[in-house]
C-alpha cells in the first residue's frame, strides 16, 4: 500500500507512545488550528473552530499526541437532522510522517463510539472522490458511499457523502411510503455549502 509520505522522514513510533486526548484546554485550540491549516487546503476561520468547541466540547476535538506533540485531530459534531439524531465528522488530519500507523482509524473509532453512546442513529461525512486514503479508511469502518455530490469542492472535484448506520436495537419493519419527509432541501443547502470542503451539508438548527 502506498502512503503519501514521500519526502517525509519515517517516524519510528510505538502504538503505546501515542496518547489520545479529547479537547480540554484553551491551549489545544492553536495546536489544532495549525494542524488543519497545514494539511487541508481550505481556510477555516476562528469562528468555525469556536463553533465546534462551544457546542460539542467533549466530541469536537479528539487529538493524538506523540511525545507532547499534537500529530492528529478529528473534529466532529452531533445534531438532529430531519427526525434522526446523527453524528458528523467535519475534519480529520494526521501529520504526514505519522500516517499509515492506524492513528486516524483510532481517532475516528473513538469519536464514533462517543456518538453511538450518545444515541446517534448514524454518522455522515463528505470526502473528495479522489481521496483514496480517506475513502479506504472509512470503508473499512463500514461507511457506505450513499451519494455523490456534483462538483462539491472548489477545485471542481465531486464528493461522496459517506454514511454509517448503527444497528437498531430490534429489527423494525420498514414503514410504508410517504412516511418520511422528503429530502428536497438538501440541494439548497448544498449550494450554499458546496464551495467549502469538509462542510456539513446541514446545520444543526
Amino acid at each position, binding site marked *: 500500500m502506498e502512503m503519501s509520505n514521500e519526502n517525509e522522514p519515517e517516524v519510528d513510533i510505538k502504538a503505546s507512545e501515542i496518547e489520545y486526548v479529547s479537547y480540554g484546554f484553551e491551549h489545544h485550540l492553536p495546536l489544532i488550528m495549525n494542524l488543519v491549516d497545514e494539511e487541508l487546503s481550505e481556510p477555516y476561520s476562528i*469562528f468555525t473552530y469556536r463553533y465546534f468547541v462551544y457546542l460539542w466540547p467533549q466530541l469536537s476535538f479528539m487529538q493524538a499526541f506523540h511525545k507532547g506533540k499534537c500529530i492528529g485531530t478529528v473534529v466532529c459534531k452531533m445534531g438532529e437532522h430531519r427526525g434522526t439524531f446523527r453524528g458528523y465528522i467535519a475534519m480529520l488530519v494526521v501529520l504526514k510522517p505519522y500516517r499509515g500507523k492506524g492513528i486516524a482509524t483510532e481517532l475516528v*473509532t473513538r469519536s464514533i463510539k462517543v456518538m453511538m453512546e450518545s444515541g446517534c442513529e448514524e454518522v455522515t461525512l463528505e470526502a473528495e472522490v479522489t481521496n483514496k486514503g480517506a475513502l479506504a479508511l472509512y470503508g473499512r469502518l*463500514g461507511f457506505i458511499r450513499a451519494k455523490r455530490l456534483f462538483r462539491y469542492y472548489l477545485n471542481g472535484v465531486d464528493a461522496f457523502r459517506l454514511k454509517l448506520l*448503527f444497528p437498531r436495537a430490534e429489527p423494525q419493519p*420498514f414503514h410504508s411510503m410517504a412516511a418520511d419527509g422528503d*429530502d428536497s432541501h438538501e*440541494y439548497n443547502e448544498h449550494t450554499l455549502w458546496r464551495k*467549502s470542503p469538509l462542510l456539513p451539508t446541514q446545520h444543526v438548527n
Partner: protein
Amino acid sequence: MADVCEGEGERQVPICPSIPSGEQTVWADASSLLHLACNDLRDGELIHGENFNLFAAMSALEIMDPKMDSGMVRTYYSVDEAIEYGAAPVPLSFDKTVDVQGTIDIMDHLLACEATWHKGCSLAQTVFSCLYLLRPDRTSSHALLHSYCRVMRASCNAVVCTVSDTRTNEEEDLFTMTHGLPLKVDGDDKCLTMLHAVEETIARQLRACKAILSKKRVTEDIEPLQNNPDLEEGFCKSLLCRLRFRKHFYHVVTNMKRPQGRGLELAKKHIACCFEELDSMIKSAEFLRSINALGTLEDGMKSETTASGSQPVGFDSTLNSRLSAPTPPRAIETISWKKAAEYFQKLLHELEIICSYNLDPVFEGVLRFVVEFQKFQPELVARAHLQHLLVQDGKLYGRDSVFAVICKASLLPEVAKNHDIQKNETVVQLGQLLITLLRVLCTNISWQRRKLGKILQDWRIIHVQLELAFREEFGDIAATSSNENICMKICRHILIWVEEQTYWIASRFLMLGFELDLYSTGEYCMVYWYIYIILIKLAEKTHMRAMTSNEISKRKGKKKRDLVKDGGKDYQLPPAILFLQCHLYLAEGLTMMLAALRNEKQIYLSTGPFNSEHERFVQHFELLLKACLPDHVSYYSFEETTAHARLSNVSMYNCFKEAQRIAKELRSSFSNDSDKMAELRRIEQVAEHNSVALAEHLRAYYYI
C-alpha cells in the same frame, strides 16, 4: 467580530445623522459599554449568539487574511477606476499591428472564459471579467472589438435563457446568475449585422493582400488591416475564423431554441461550420505563436489562455466577485485556450447528436436516446439543449401531448388519445410525473440518481391513485375481462405501463450507482442481487404490456415469473424482453458467483466494527425498500438466496451460458442499432469470461 455582534441582536451602529431619532429609536453612544464588555472577555473568547450557526461560522471571514478576504487581492476598487488607470484602452494601441494582436488575445481569452463558465464557474468571474464587455459603449469606435463583444454577450444571453428555461441546472445554479451584469444590451440583438460587416471588410483585406502577394493588380483600393505586410494574411485569417466561429455558434444556439425542433436542420449546418472554423483557429495558433517567437502548440499552452501565449489586456476577475456567488468569492482558475477549444469540440459534437435525433414518438425510444446521450458525460449546456428539445409547453418536443405519449407507450390504439379520461385529475398528474422524469434524466447523473430515488415513491403512489380513480369512474377493472370497453382497455394498459416504468426507473437508479462509483466490491453481491430482482419485475411488466396489447393475456397455469424465465419454449418472446432476460441471467450469475466466493473463500466480504451487512443493505436500498420495490423484499430475502451459494453449483454456470446464448441470438434483431449491438457484445464478453473462470474453478474443484 462584526458577525458575532450581529447575532446578539444589539448592533452597534455609529451615530448616523442621516437616520434621525424617532419615536421608536434613540441614538446613544455605546462605546463605553463595549469597552467594558471587552474587558470581560478573556483571550481567545468570542461572544456567541443564538442564531450564529455553523453556516454563519463558516461564512464568516477573517478580515485581511489573504486566504479568506478576497477584497485584499484586488488591484482596483471599481470598473471605472480600472478603466481610468488604463486597464482597458480603446484602441488597444495606436500601432495597428499591436492592436490587432491584442484583440485576438482578448477573443481567445474570452473563449477560455466562456468554457470555464460552462464548466461551472460564475459568469461574473469568467466572461464578465472582461472590462470591455462590462462597458458596452466604450468599444463603439472599435468596430472589430465592438462587434465581437456584442455577439459574445448575445450568445451568452441565449445560452443563459435556454438553461434557465429548462432548469436543468438545479445543482449548477451559478450558471444563470447574471444579476448586475450587462448581459442584455440594446443593439446586441442586431449583432450579426455588425459582425457581418466587419467580416466582409477583413475578407476583402485578405483578398487584397493575397492579390498583392501573387502580384495581381488590385482593383479596389483597400486599407490593410494593419501595418506589417508580412503578417497581413496571417492576421486576417486568424480574425476571420474567430469571427465566423462566433457567428455560427450564435446561429447554433438560437436555432436550437426554435419550437418543435424546427431549427435543428439549420443548426446542424452551422455546427459543421463551427467545427471548420474551430479547426482554423487551432491552426492559427502556430502563426500567432511564431510572432511571439514561442514554441508550437504542443510544447506550451498547458495553462495559457490565448493561442498566442500572451496575456490579454482588459480583464480583471476580482472586480466582479461581489456579484458572483452567495459564498465568499474565491479565486478561480481559467482553463487554457487549448482545453477550451477541446471543450467546444465536445459540446458541438453533443449538440450535433441532438440535432440528428429523429424525434422518436415512442417513449421507450426517447428514454434510450437520453440514456445513451448521458454516456458522453455532457456538460450543463448540452444537457439543457437536450431537455429544451424534449420538453416544450408541457409536451414532448412541444408536439405530442403527454397523454398521447402515454397511450402510445401503453400500446393503446390511436383512438385512445382523444379519450376524455385524460382530463381526470390523476391522469393529469401522471402526465406531470412523466415530464418530471424526462427533466430529471437530463440532469447530471449525481443529481439525477438522487432525484430518481425520490420520484420512485411518486410513481408508486400514482399507481395506487390511478387504480382508485379508474375504479371510481368505471367500476371494477378486474371484474370485466373483455377489452370491448375502450375505457377498461385504457385503464388496464396504463396501469401496467406505470408499473413497468417504475421498475425501469428503479433499474436506472441502481445502474447509475456503478457509474457514480457508489458501490464497493464487498457490496457488489447485494447490488447484483437487487438488480436481478428488479429486472425480473421489469421483464414481467414489459411482457404483460406486450401480451395485453396482443389480447393473449389469458395464459393460465403458469406464474408470471416462470413465463419470463422460460420464454421461448412455446412461443417467441419479443427481442426487448429477451434483452432484459440476458441482463437478468448475467445479474443472477454474478450474484451467485460472488455469494459463493464469500461463502467458501471469505473474499468480498462486507464487514466493519460498527455494523453489519444488514445495515449497509438497508442504507443502499433505502429508497427502493420504502417504495416497496418490489413488495415483500428485505435483507432476509437476499440472505436466503445467497446463503447456500457454492462454486460447485452448476446453475450459475448455466446463467452465464444462457446470457451468452441469448446475446448471440439477439444480434440479428438489433443489427441496425449500434448501441444495442455494443451492449450485446459486452454482455457476451462478461458472460463468457465468467463462465470460463467458473469452469476453471469447477475443474479444480473436482480434481483436487
